[in-house]
């Protein structure tokens, strides 16, 4: 048992981080906000070329890696607040839908958010995912879709009827969303800690005050517990463990963003600080695929079935 990243996994993580730092830095992020979160097609194709969507396809035409590697990649996407239906397009690529693997087409999912569809208007197709089956529909097939004013400026939303999931969600979809939450939790922790070191009040950095220090420490604790859960679930692929990982990662991302906002004080409540973008996305992801109540029920069921 060596439950640490391998050298190859570290290199992959670093590579994705460098790609996103160069291609989706602060200016690109704020430009995406100004464009209503619309998918940047050029960036999407670059992600496709980098293997973002084809990561788990066999080496003929894909990268040939597994769920742990995909988790590391989606964690970095969450850290960078990268927008677009990343998980849905990744799943479409796994399902062999043309144009998904190379990032030339954008796929969203109708069955992850109970009737609300992210990025409906700027996607090429909508995939209904029920367990292992997939059904593809096109925007023209869905004339009843109505735009919703989205709370998250990076995730435009439409409402379409019939988006209620009929089967348990795909485990990999749940886990990759949890991985994005983990990256977001790590980022808000780093951001809060940096701000606490820089910002001075009462003649000293606010990070010297225990009340602020303890907020930051709790952020790290939640992130590290969620990290162990998410990474382990990627290795075991056990559905109950994946549900538990989502539960803890949702909490780490949401609480982390809220605490980061608190550390930022009045600045945290402004549009200019990025922390609200993390919080709004974390709230949205917490509703995706598996809610806290559903994850808790799955865990309770696992407990009862072990008796």
């Amino acid at each position, binding site marked *: *048992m*060596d*439950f*640490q*990243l*391998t050298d190859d*996994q570290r290199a992959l993580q670093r590579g994705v981080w460098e790609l996103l730092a160069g291609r989706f830095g602060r200016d690109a992020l704020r430009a995406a906000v100004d464009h209503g979160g619309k998918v940047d097609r050029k960036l999407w194709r670059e992600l496709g070329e980098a293997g973002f969507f084809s990561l788990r396809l066999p080496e003929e035409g894909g990268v040939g890696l597994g769920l*742990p590697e995909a988790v590391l990649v989606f964690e970095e996407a969450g850290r960078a607040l990268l927008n677009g239906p990343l998980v849905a397009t990744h799943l479409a690529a796994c399902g062999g839908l043309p144009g998904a693997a190379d990032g030339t087409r954008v796929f969203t999912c109708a069955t992850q958010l109970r009737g609300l569809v992210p990025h409906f208007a700027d996607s090429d197709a909508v995939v209904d995912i029920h367990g292992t089956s997939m059904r593809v529909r096109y925007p023209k097939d869905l004339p009843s879709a109505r735009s919703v004013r989205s709370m998250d400026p990076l995730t435009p939303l439409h409402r379409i009827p019939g988006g209620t999931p009929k089967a348990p969600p795909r485990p990999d979809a749940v886990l990759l969303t949890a991985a994005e939450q983990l990256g977001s939790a790590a980022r808000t922790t780093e951001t809060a*800690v940096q701000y*606490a*070191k820089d910002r001075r009040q009462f003649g*000293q*950095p606010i*990070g*010297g*005050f*225990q009340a*602020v*220090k*303890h907020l*930051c*420490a*709790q952020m*790290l*604790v939640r992130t*590290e*517990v*969620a*990290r*162990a*859960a998410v*990474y*382990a679930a*990627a*290795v*075991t692929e056990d559905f109950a*463990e994946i*549900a*538990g*990982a989502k*539960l*803890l990662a949702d909490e780490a991302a949401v609480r982390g963003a809220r605490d980061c906002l608190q550390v930022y004080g009045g600045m945290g409540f402004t549009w200019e600080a990025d922390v609200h973008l993390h919080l709004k996305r974390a709230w949205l992801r917490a509703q995706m695929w598996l809610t806290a*109540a559903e*994850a*808790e*029920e*799955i*865990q*309770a*069921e*696992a*407990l*009862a079935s*072990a*008796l």
Partner: protein
Amino acid sequence: MDLTYTAEEEDFRARLREWLAVSLPKLPAKPGPLDWPGRRAYDTTWQRMLYDAGYGEVHWDAPPTQRLIFLEETELAGAPYVGANFVGLLHAGPTIAAEGTAEQRARWLPPVLRGDEVWCQGFSEPDAGSDLASLRTRAVRDGDSYVVTGSKIWTSHAEVADWCELLVRTDTEAPKHRGITWLAMPMDAPGITVRPLRTLAGSAEFAEMFLDEVRVPVADRVGRENDGWRVTMVTLSFERGTAFVGEVVACRRTLGELAAAARANGTWDDPVLRRRLGRLNAEFRALWRLTQWNVSESQMTGGVPGIGGSVFKLRYSHARQELYDTAAEVLGPDAFDLDREWTADRLSSLSYTIAAGTSQIQRNIVAERILGLPKGR
């Protein structure tokens, strides 16, 4: 990232499991929760059985992965906890193994492993509390001995211990972290008075200790004079890093028993309670994964657990309290029956966010030493 064990490790697990199945029924009846001399006898009997079967050194010299398997299997089988051997096996032992001389290791380690000698911890003092380094018990050099005067508190198992890992101040002029020395004190030395303290759980598991010119040979000092704070950090890294590991498995077992009880008495049908149990299941499962992560990391960096132990200890101590609060919900009014094991465990869980460094101190450690936030209060 790999969570599978080697064939060799699985073989170790299978042999251990087999041995536990044969050996556990041979143990004498478990003494009551308040019978400390009885518990010393019981705990040391178990330690002797482990030693004779070749499992004595599993806490120190075995590869960390083997230690994990040992803790997992013994807890799952419902074997006794280290109990009265806690300080010897998990604090003083690893510290002496890491910092002691060859003579000291030969003198102190085998009796701990055989269950012949029990240790207690003389770190805390009445006026120091969480500010451990402000301790005032003094040791003055007199020839080949230190003459120790002062008092200690919260000394677990002091009444039944043979040795005490003792922190003393050997330089009163030096800054408070510099003038400290780590000594091994025999508990039968003249000048030691032990007064039991009764905990809110009704148990007398710890005590106050008064030291009046107690002579400790200079040869029984572990590490250099005035370098005791560094040695103490080694002890505390074991305390926070590994001492609670087996308990996580025990908590998972308790959670399973709790689910069975909830199904039997109908409280399982309450979705709020059921989800609370589900959340705890996710929590303890993740804590076990975090343990595996920390152990793998320490394996890479050479054995002594890192300060990741503080992250673990913080989360675990609160989760344990939540577990027994939830047990009380399942039990209903029966949670007031002191003869129910969960009732006693609920009371003792209250110490977890205080002992071995309070949650507030752990948060300071995480903030200052992992996140690099400025020191200050």
